[in-house]
């Protein structure tokens, strides 16, 4: 059993077009690094200096990991992780 990771469309070109990939249990940042070893370029799109990027939302099952333990959140076998790029913009100041 592994952790299921849902990849958003903009990043699927890095995962050979796969919408769902699997990775090992451990901390969230470790999962991102392990996935990057298989799908190079993924980690830098999701994280920066071992933290999740501001405009990337990462959900562990139904919880935003910002409200858990951020990049250090523990992920177990059977969990589902969803990576969801933020949608933001506007006129600006």
């Amino acid at each position, binding site marked *: 059993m592994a952790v299921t990771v849902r990849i958003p469309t*903009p990043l699927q070109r890095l995962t050979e077009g796969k919408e769902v990939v699997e990775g090992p249990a451990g901390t969230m940042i470790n999962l991102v690094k392990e996935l990057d070893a298989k799908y190079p370029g993924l980690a830098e799109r999701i994280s920066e200096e071992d933290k999740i990027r501001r405009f990337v939302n990462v959900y562990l099952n139904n919880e935003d990991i910002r409200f858990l333990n951020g990049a250090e959140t523990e992920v177990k076998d059977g969990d589902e992780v969803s990576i969801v790029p*933020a*949608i933001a913009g506007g006129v600006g100041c």
Partner: protein
Amino acid sequence: MPNAHDIILSRNQIDSIVAHAVSGLPNEVCGILAGRGNRVFDVIPIKNADPSPVGYFMDTSQQIRAIRMMRKKGLNQVGIYHSHTESDALPSAKDVELAFHPGPAYVILSLAGLHPELKAFEINKGLVKERFIVIDRNLKATEGVDDV
């Protein structure tokens, strides 16, 4: 005949985007256009988590609920809409900088003029290209798509 780069909406869907934008004044509003191909089946208003007259940030929990609902219904994110309250329906520098989704159309509704103005764009790696909006009088919403 619409082509693959157009975005196809019904009059009612456009009216509902306008109504959402007006209800959110003086702040910008935002939402997702769910559908298949380039046809919109549902307008899904999403809470602006950072309400302001000059910006929006989609509430992430509502965004992910919308994504899951679309997945369940076999729908895709055909478009992403937001309003400009005091400026034209053109992508701002901020819109371009924060456009992380190259696939869906970025639909902008301006309430700055006498009449609402709606335009759609493809934004990919800083490049902006306008997409035509086609109004389909026969387009029906899917049944049973819940609000988020």
